[in-house]
């Protein structure tokens, strides 16, 4: 037996046959309905059998092993890890909202919120209509590109088989284009982070279905030639898709609709601060210009004679269809609605202002410490990139080493190795809800790590030192696959194959 360590056994290791959180079991029901013999399960599934206290303790302890916004500064670029107001969760979890079956008669209270949310998102993006159906950013992208496809098809413009994507794009962009049956055509960016217009001009053709962009781009800078890009693509007959992951940077300052985009998805879990939940859920609402309105995914909330109702196939016969079993991540949308109402007109603009202030301040301070900004001549948007290629050469430390070492200092690491085209990069997004003091403390940590690079590089290479585990062997994880608990009966019982 050794001292306290944060290691927690697997829940299966706490299990014993016959144990159980029995107050959670339903009371016995009289009656004798039985499953036919040939369809019955023969042996019980190897789920854990634990007491309620064991389960509560186990998962509470597990939770403590996570970094999170509620406990740590979390400047994960491209992810907008800002404060998730508790009110959003509290009021979205009112029993009437939680208890409502999605297929029951249309709940006017809930639909009122959704209808207003659609309207607010329209206003903010400058688009003509919004569907709240997509369940995360990537599904919003899917909806967007599927609408582009439906649009061209509806016009019998069937030769358009390519989607243009800048090199720096988020992985979901090319993956989405493929899912929609398109071929991806990558174009480069120039040294200042703008799209290489000449390359774009060469890339567009009658095969161009559209382009997927975000602005500010994933390089953390505002795409200055956006009007020209829009013109180029539109003239080629393509449509413009806006990846809304970076909307936080421009809320109230410039609207994708006004920049010429035809379709946009928003990451409500980023810009509108619904929680990231350890990986999800998100919500990827899509907004469209007038020409794509008819293709929006279903359902959408409409209002008629002071009653709200779901618009369905009958209302939008050209719709790209349904993307979820019901109506998307309703509860996430509810949280976004509450957040937006809390911010209101004034608060919404401040988001971009202070996100930009924090990012530019942090960039300047890190530069002063000696770090190299990837685009030093540019304003940072809500995020910016540091490249450690010098340090990599000089001290053989990697961006990953710095990321891991930051954990020891009590900071979640920035995004590493994305965008791929900047070597040894850290994409840093402080968000508007962090205080100057926290940015300063982060700078102190970075300065200290910089010292360590010179004097104690091993400290970085072997970081982290203070987490429940040391650096993990990812190669082994992928080579010697251990994906489920081996003691499980399901695993032991020979499978059919």
């Amino acid at each position, binding site marked *: 037996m050794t001292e306290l360590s944060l290691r927690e056994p697997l829940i299966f290791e706490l299990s014993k046959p016959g144990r159980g959180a029995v107050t959670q079991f339903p009371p016995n029901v009289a009656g004798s309905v039985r499953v036919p013999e040939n369809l019955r399960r023969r042996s019980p599934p190897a789920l854990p059998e634990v007491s309620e206290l064991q389960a509560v303790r186990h998962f509470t302890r597990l939770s*403590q092993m996570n970094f999170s916004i509620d406990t740590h500064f979390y400047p994960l670029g491209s992810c907008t890890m800002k404060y998730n107001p508790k009110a959003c969760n509290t009021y979205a979890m009112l029993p*009437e909202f939680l208890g409502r079956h999605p297929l029951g008669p249309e709940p006017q209270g809930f639909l009122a919120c959704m209808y207003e949310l659609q309207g607010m998102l329209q206003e903010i993006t400058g688009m003509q209509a919004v569907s709240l159906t997509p369940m995360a950013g990537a599904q919003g992208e899917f909806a967007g590109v599927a609408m582009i496809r439906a649009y061209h098809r509806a016009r019998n413009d069937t030769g358009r088989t390519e989607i243009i994507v800048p090199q720096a794009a988020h992985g*979901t962009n090319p993956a989405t284009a493929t899912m929609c049956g398109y071929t991806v055509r990558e174009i480069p960016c120039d040294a200042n982070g703008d799209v290489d217009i000449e390359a774009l001009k060469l890339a567009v053709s009658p095969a161009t279905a559209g382009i997927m962009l975000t602005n500010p781009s994933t390089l953390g800078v505002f795409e200055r030639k956006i009007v020209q890009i829009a013109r180029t693509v539109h003239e080629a007959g393509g449509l413009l898709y806006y990846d809304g992951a970076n909307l936080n940077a421009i809320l109230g300052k410039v609207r994708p609709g006004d920049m010429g985009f035809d379709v946009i998805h928003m990451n409500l879990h980023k810009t509108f601060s619904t929680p990231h939940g350890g990986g999800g859920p*998100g919500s990827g609402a899509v907004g469209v210009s007038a020409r794509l309105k008819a293709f929006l995914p279903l359902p959408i909330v409409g209002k008629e004679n002071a009653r709200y109702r779901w618009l369905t196939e009958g209302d939008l016969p050209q719709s790209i269809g349904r993307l979820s079993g019901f109506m998307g991540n309703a509860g996430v949308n509810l949280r976004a609605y509450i957040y937006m109402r809390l911010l209101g007109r004034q*608060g919404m603009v401040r988001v971009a202002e*202070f996100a930009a202030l924090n990012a530019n301040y942090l960039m300047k301070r890190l530069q002063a410490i000696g770090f190299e900004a990837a685009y030093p001549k540019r304003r940072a948007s809500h995020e910016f990139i540091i490249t450690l290629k010098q340090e990599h050469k000089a001290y053989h430390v990697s961006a990953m080493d710095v990321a891991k070492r930051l954990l020891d200092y009590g900071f979640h690491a920035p995004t590493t190795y994305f965008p791929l085209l900047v070597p040894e990069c850290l994409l840093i997004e402080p968000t508007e809800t962090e205080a100057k003091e926290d940015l300063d403390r982060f700078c102190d940590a970075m300065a200290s790590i910089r010292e360590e690079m010179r004097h104690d590089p091993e400290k970085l290479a072997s970081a982290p030192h203070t987490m429940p585990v040391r650096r993990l062997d990812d190669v*082994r994880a992928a080579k010697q696959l251990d994906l*489920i608990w081996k003691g*499980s009966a399901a695993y032991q019982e020979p499978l059919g194959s």
Partner: protein
Amino acid sequence: MAFIPHTAEDIARMLGVIGVNGIEDLFDEIPAELRAGALSLPEPLSEMEIGRLMGERAAIDGRPLNFIGAGAYEHHIPAPVWSIATRGEFYSAYTPYQAEASQGTLQLVYEYQSMMCALTGMEVSNASLYDGASALAEACLMAVRSNRSSSSRRILMPRAVNPTYAQVARAIAGNQDISFVPVDYDRFAGVTLLEALEAYSAQDFTALIVQQPNFFGSLEEVDALTNWAHENKILLIALVNPISLALLKPPAQWGTEIAGVRGADIVCGEGQSLGVPLASGGPYFGFMATRMHYVRQMPGRIVGRTVDTEGRPGFSLTLQAREQHIRRSKATSNICTNQGLMVTAATIYMSLLGPRGLEAVAQASMQRTGELISALCQVAGVKRGFTAPHFHEAVLLLDRPAAEVLAALYRKGIIGGLDLSERYPELGSAMLVCATETKLSVDIDRYRAALTDAMSASCAT
């Protein structure tokens, strides 16, 4: 300023460090002609005001007594589930990219994967997809990637599969030229009969989808269907309800061994029953499990157990080379953000219920539905739609228009069931009703009494 911590002094100092005069200067790269004017949005509300507003909206919706299932089921959710899942450390973290600072989420997902494999009998599970419907769509795409012996891109989609799921599969997989061929159900039994499939024997299909229990709540003869698929070199996609798996044969054991293979090849479904509230339709989560053989074709995140530099066990995301952030246009799927928090809830739920609790939930739900059906069929003009045994929902046929009857029930605070007339016009006036362990005899009595009134009232109309 809501959620903004900056004082006037902070702002001044920060602008000084940046070397600009004002915050506006930070936006000077945006072409002037593009700059937005004032937004037309409501004034900010205080938390007190939004609380009141949401309370009023919630009160409008009320708390009717619900008897719809149809893909989303009202089960008791243990109090620990959400009191733990909403802890900031779970709620406000993101995808565990930094494994060492995310062991809580990672270990939990590993436990979740193990539990889903225990339920389905499969070898590997992912860390969730968006919901049941999109999981089915992903399963279809995965089947096309996996079934090397088929080049048809054609998938058999029984009409007894949830029709919305069929729509979603079409909307998503359709873009990749995958087509779906419907398979009719037996009007009498309410299940997909082998006879309906025989017509397709010896044709090239990629996959057959089998939903168990099917959309009508009826139990399919899964062994025969699975064997037929495997005999025809067709992959079997099982679409299952996780609670039902506590009672029903796991998809891995469907059918018999044929050419070295037994059971479903891909299992997917809606995870909502496992501790996730109805909440007007989401967020829920989709699950997916498969054979180890196909693991590299599976979409979504996967957590693996490994060791750290000191040899201690730990968890991290693995097989990321399947995913969009590495493989980009060649990824297995575009999915990035998934439904992590719901998986957290489900893992806590399954831990609390365990094998015995989950079986009791399944059994009680089945019994309550039996009780409900018997009770309602005593009402004049109401009869059972199908003869096959059902799990926790079933079809009722009415001699009045279902829409009218349901409207009358709703006026009494009862959501009586799902009107099937649009989706299945051939059934006439039909509705799908469901009861779970949360429906007690008093509730069923209340429903029966209200239905008795509604059936005679709509008669009068």
